[in-house]
Every structure is written in structure tokens, then in C-alpha cells.
């Protein structure tokens, strides 16, 4: 374990914690971007260059901007009254469930740590290989994902489209 991993892991976890804990929604979106950037750097640290840069393009470039757009379009709802707070009525149950999930996952990981593979050789994977795999062996999933993205984009536009007054 090198120190770079610890720094990136701390950055990612702190960003994620801030994203779910902060009161101001815009601050949450910014913290989410930090968490996404930390994850992209962790991907690069794992020698997955293509996935790392795809993460930067898709998450930091698109999803974070989409979240900011949604926050600004639903403004007026983001100033919760002081007595209610930002957490729901059943926050304690949710916290217990999340803590239990983490406890089980961490227990499983630590229990199986001896059987996990140790340091492997650095895999040499070029973007050309990934492109050839996408166009060859994975061409059907690629087409299905393309169809899914088109359908999801059209569906999102239709769902969010403004309904005109008096229109059917």
C-alpha cells in the first residue's frame, strides 16, 4: 500500500461524507464532484486509464453538471426550515441500516483478506485494445447501451418537459 492510495482514499471518502452531510445543496454537489475526482484518480492508480478518464468525462463533466442544474431548477425547496433540518424522520433507522451494511461488507473483506490475490503484474492495456474489444466481442452490449442511452435521454426530456396549460 503506497501513500498515494491513502491520500486518494481519504479524499474520496471525505468528499462522499461531505456530499451527504452538508446542508447547502450546492455545496453537496461540489463535494460530490470531489468524490468523483477522487474515484477517477483511484481508477488511474489502478492502471485503468480508460475507465479513469471515462469517469472524469461522464461524472465530473456530465452527471455533476446535471445535478447542479436540477438543484438550481428546484430552487426554493433547498432552504429547509430550521426546526425540520435536512434529515428525514426515519434518519436513525437509515443510519443503522447503512452501518450494518458497512459492518457486514468490512467483515467479509477482512475475513477473506488472506485468500485475495496479492500484487499482480501491471496489466498493459491500451485504448486500442479496448476499442477492438468494444467493436468485436462486446459489440452487442455496446449497441444495447447505445439504445438504452437514447431511450433514457428521450424519456428524461419527455418526463421533465413543461406541460402547456390547457394542452391534452
Amino acid at each position, binding site marked *: 500500500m503506497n501513500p498515494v492510495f491513502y491520500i486518494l482514499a481519504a479524499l474520496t471518502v471525505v468528499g462522499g461524507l461531505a*456530499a*451527504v452531510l452538508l446542508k447547502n*445543496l450546492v455545496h453537496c454537489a461540489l463535494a460530490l464532484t470531489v468524490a468523483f475526482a477522487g474515484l477517477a484518480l483511484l481508477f488511474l492508480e489502478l492502471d485503468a486509464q480508460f475507465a479513469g478518464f471515462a469517469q472524469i468525462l461522464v461524472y465530473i463533466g456530465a452527471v455533476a453538471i446535471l445535478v447542479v442544474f436540477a438543484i438550481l431548477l428546484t430552487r426554493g425547496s433547498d432552504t429547509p426550515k430550521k426546526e425540520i433540518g435536512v434529515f428525514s424522520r426515519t434518519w436513525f433507522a*437509515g443510519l443503522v441500516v447503512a452501518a450494518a451494511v458497512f459492518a457486514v461488507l468490512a467483515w467479509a473483506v*477482512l475475513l477473506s483478506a488472506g485468500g485475495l490475490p496479492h500484487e499482480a503484474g501491471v496489466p498493459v492495456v491500451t485504448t486500442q485494445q479496448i476499442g477492438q474489444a468494444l467493436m468485436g466481442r462486446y459489440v452487442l452490449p455496446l449497441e444495447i447501451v447505445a439504445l438504452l442511452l437514447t431511450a433514457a435521454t428521450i424519456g428524461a426530456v419527455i418526463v421533465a418537459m413543461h406541460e402547456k396549460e390547457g394542452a391534452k
Partner: protein
Amino acid sequence: MNPLSGYLLVAALLFAIGLAGALTRRNAILVLIGIELMLNAANLNLIAFWRYGPHPEALTGMMFAIFSIAVAAAEAAVGLGLVISIYRHAKTTDLDQMNRMKG
């Protein structure tokens, strides 16, 4: 510590943070942010297993993560469209106030 278990622990922690956010926040957009964090934690697991697995040149884990990123982007677009739609209808994104199915 085993490098793979380090990445798996970080992913588990991130997943738990996202789950806690999705279960405890009142705002619908924050719930979506929590779901995105959980999806990203799963992607980190996939990439880590690909990196330390026996056959990284087969690219299976990497491909799984790339397709998962694409599906998560579609999910984010539809989810945020739904939030904007329901905000226009109910003038709130507070999930505790959305307590009826009828419009």
C-alpha cells in the same frame, strides 16, 4: 495490508456513505447523489478486481465498469428528470411530504 482489500474497504465505506445519504436525507436530489455514490463504489470494486485478478488482459472487469458508467449516466438523467417533474407538480423536493400516489 493486502492492496486489494484496501480498495475493497474504501469501496465498502463509500457504499455505506451513499446508502446512509439515500436513506436519511429529505431532499430527492440528495437521494440521487447517494445512489450515484453507491454505483461508483461498485465500479471501484469492479476495477480493483480487474486489476488484481488472474487475467487482466481479458478486460472483462474493465468492460463491466465502462458499461456500468454508461448505465449510471442514463439513470442519473432519468432520475433528475423525475425530480424536476415532481417539483413542478408538487412545488417541493422533500420526500417526507410526497405521501400520495395520486396527482
